[in-house]
């Protein structure tokens, strides 16, 4: 029979060292008595030298598991871990078998420790106890964890509170952080910590952030079990808060509405002086477009995207509708399709900033699918509703040529959006009598997946753009 005594401070590395020693010597679990600080060494055991029989390796996930489970308060924890390790030696797949009885017990213990650690991070309450001789502020807390969580959790407090001295005292192991050095000591008795002025403010906050109209005591207790209440200053207020809640909720319901205070109109007058950067354009037409509610698209889109460009532009470019990027930033043709357009336009010597760029429909139409917005083609009624705005823009700019890109723009300008592939490259007449050059929509070029077809469509688009350039010169 072998005996391993694991100390209470440094248990994780001690267990790991012993387990490695036993496993490499091939000692089966039933030959080892694991003891912790609470148990005295068994008189009938012998401490024999073990001869290692080579390297042992286990999955990393087991090491992580073991490093947590060793802090559990179950006296059998070391033995359970070693027994499972013994099985794992021959069957490394065991770690991914979530239905295994031993593993699921260990996983549950791991969860217990994790939860206890988490609650310790949450529920430790420091009180200020003065200033150290080096001038650092000192804080102390008394805490009673369910498992041996002080040592594995102490680093959290180091990461968080290293510009002050602090100590977390518990009945078993206490953590002390002084001048940037962390140390552990065996247990303490409950100290008498001095009153702390911050505590009163905290209780005030706790009482007032509570909404008496929505009492859910069970939800509170499942997350903040009563065993922690004794060391939390705010918990003393809970019974009183629960008892008073129904009456407070009732009095809110019964109170008659009051008259607004006299200063109301005076205060609200301030509002009229506030100018907001988000108020949108001031000129009549863009302002009217951004306030448009003719069709339901305005409810879902971020904003209406009006056309942009010089007011004396000879060329007007009309696309379908703003896309995802355009909708967010409020400018036409800034997304992927706009970039394709710019690339090809620069090849044929067309400068986009000389043209007036706009869309047949001013609001983005989409369906929400998870984290993405999927573009949807506007229907005829939406194009019809928006035609008024496009016509107003055409009136204002009075271009020599309109470039209609894609079916929606062509439909809006000529009345029909059919057969774009055969009509492209041709110049037709718009409803208002201006020449309209029909071409593909740049987003179509992005959608074509066949490389050959893509090259061809790029060439067609380039041909149409240079035709537009030729038309204007």
């Amino acid at each position, binding site marked *: 029979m072998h005996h391993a005594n694991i100390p209470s401070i440094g248990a994780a590395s001690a267990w790991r060292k012993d387990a490695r020693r036993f496993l490499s010597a091939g000692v089966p679990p039933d030959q080892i008595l694991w003891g912790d600080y609470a148990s005295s060494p068994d008189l009938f055991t012998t401490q024999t030298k073990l001869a290692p029989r080579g390297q042992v390796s286990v999955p990393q996930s087991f090491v992580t598991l073991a490093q947590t489970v060793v802090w559990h308060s179950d006296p059998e924890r070391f033995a359970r871990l070693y027994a499972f390790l013994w099985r794992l030696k021959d069957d490394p797949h065991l770690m991914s078998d979530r*239905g295994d009885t031993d593993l699921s017990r260990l996983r549950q213990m791991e969860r217990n420790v994790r939860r206890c650690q988490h609650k310790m991070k949450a529920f430790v309450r420091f009180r200020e106890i003065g200033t150290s001789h080096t001038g650092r502020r000192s804080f102390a807390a008394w805490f009673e964890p369910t498992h041996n969580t002080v040592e594995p959790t102490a680093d959290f407090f180091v990461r968080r*509170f*290293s510009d002050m001295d602090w100590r977390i005292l518990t009945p078993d192991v206490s953590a002390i952080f002084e001048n940037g050095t962390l140390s552990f000591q065996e247990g303490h008795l409950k100290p008498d910590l001095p009153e702390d002025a911050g505590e009163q403010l905290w209780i005030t906050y706790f009482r007032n952030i509570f909404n008496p109209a929505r009492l859910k005591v069970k939800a509170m207790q499942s997350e903040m079990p009563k065993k922690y209440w004794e060391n939390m200053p705010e918990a003393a207020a809970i019974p009183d808060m629960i008892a008073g809640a129904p009456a407070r909720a009732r009095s809110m319901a019964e109170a008659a509405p009051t008259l607004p205070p006299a200063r109301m109109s005076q205060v609200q007058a301030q*509002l009229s002086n506030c100018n907001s950067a988000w108020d949108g354009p001031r000129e009549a037409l863009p302002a009217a477009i951004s306030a448009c509610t003719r069709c339901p698209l305005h409810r879902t889109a971020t904003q209406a995207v009006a056309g942009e460009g010089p007011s004396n532009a000879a060329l007007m470019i009309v696309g379908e509708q703003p896309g995802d990027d355009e909708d967010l930033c409020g400018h036409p043709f800034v997304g992927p399709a706009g970039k394709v357009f710019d690339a090809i336009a620069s090849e044929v010597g067309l400068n986009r900033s000389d043209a007036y760029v706009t869309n047949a429909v001013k609001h983005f139409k989409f369906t*929400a699918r998870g984290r993405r917005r999927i573009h949807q083609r506007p229907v005829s009624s939406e194009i019809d509703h928006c035609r008024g705005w496009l016509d107003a823009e055409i009136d204002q700019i009075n271009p020599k040529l309109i470039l209609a890109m894609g079916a929606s723009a062509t439909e809006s300008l000529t009345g029909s959006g059919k057969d774009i592939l055969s009509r492209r490259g041709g110049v037709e007449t718009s409803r208002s009598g201006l020449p309209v050059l029909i071409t593909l929509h740049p987003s179509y070029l992005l959608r074509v997946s066949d490389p050959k077809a893509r090259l061809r469509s790029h060439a067609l688009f380039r041909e149409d753009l240079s035709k537009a350039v030729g038309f204007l010169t």
Partner: protein
Amino acid sequence: MVKHTLDQKLAILSDAAKYDASCASSGSTRRHSRDGKGLGSNEGSGICHAYTPDGRCISLLKILMTNFCIYDCSYCINRVSSNVARARFTVEEVVRLTVEFYRRNYIEGLFLSSGVIRSPDATMSDMVQIARKLRHDENFRGYIHLKTIPDAAPELIAEAGLLADRLSINVELPTDAAVQQYAPEKKPEQIRKAMADVRLRKDAGRDKSFSGKRPPRFAPAGQSTQMIIGADGSNDATVLGQSTRLYSSYKLKRVYYSAFSPIPDSSSKLPLIRPPLQREHRLYQADWLLRFYDFQLDEITSVTQDGNLDLEIDPKLAWALVHREMFPLDVNRASREMLLRVPGFGVKTVNRILATRRYRTLRYEDLLRIGASMKKARVFITAGGWSPRGLIDSADLRARFTPPPEQLVLL
């Protein structure tokens, strides 16, 4: 005006802040102050430091800078027409409260909101000043959540995003019409533009420059928003439709649903009702199904006639009861997508099932150990040693899951 003590101010301004549901402190960049030069850390996951009897956690010091406000939103305790006690913190007071609470391990950080005083820009710049003082003067490395004033200037939002972990702008109500009715001074399209602006800045913060240098991260814990449920007549399909649009348009981390709850000195425009807590709960469940379980909006909302979620059973169970022809599923063969649709199976359960069944056949007891809620799930699955037989087609299946009838209570 009466001079309030710090304690009185804290009472007034935390009371005024409690109607904001968000208290999350998770999902930001990991940082610590091991160097001894600053205070605080952020571990990625949030910590709830206390719970109040309303079941809500306290993770952040959630306060208003001031509850004076020039807006008149009917649902809000701080509206200009309300007669509640008013108070205002100085910048130093907020900084001191945050740091002292943090040192005593009461909180993870600050959630600062405010009524709008003087002008949106003036208010926002005071809030940014608080965040700046915390970060630069106090070297505070804990969590900061700033509630953005939608009308505030873009420069202020730009600075706020660099100082804070999370920004939020409340859409307040599920439809534009409701906002116009109950919050006449707020403009839904401005709120959307401000959210779009935050998203664009956040996206820009992610791009590396040519030299490979990363710009400072903008609101690393993302942006969130809140909708009040039950104040207007919108049904759940409308509410969820709005939130899916918000998630997809502005890449929100969270949409919070807040059951409209009676407030002191309430407006005559809104009915004083018991807060629809169960409805709020079901909306959160549906929100999760949409985001993590690959459900589509119409699948969830088409289960009932009126577009509202079933209050008695959860939305996944409600969907499964209507689509019984798809069940029972064999847990040893079914796809991940289908397993996620089994009531009682969560994402973790499904991952564990998939990991384990690579090596062996799963039995009923295995599922219990894996952590599945078999009370619900067993009807919808087959596993080694288990078959629901006729249970799936039994007429009283729904009744097995609904809670027993309860006596009504007065508000």
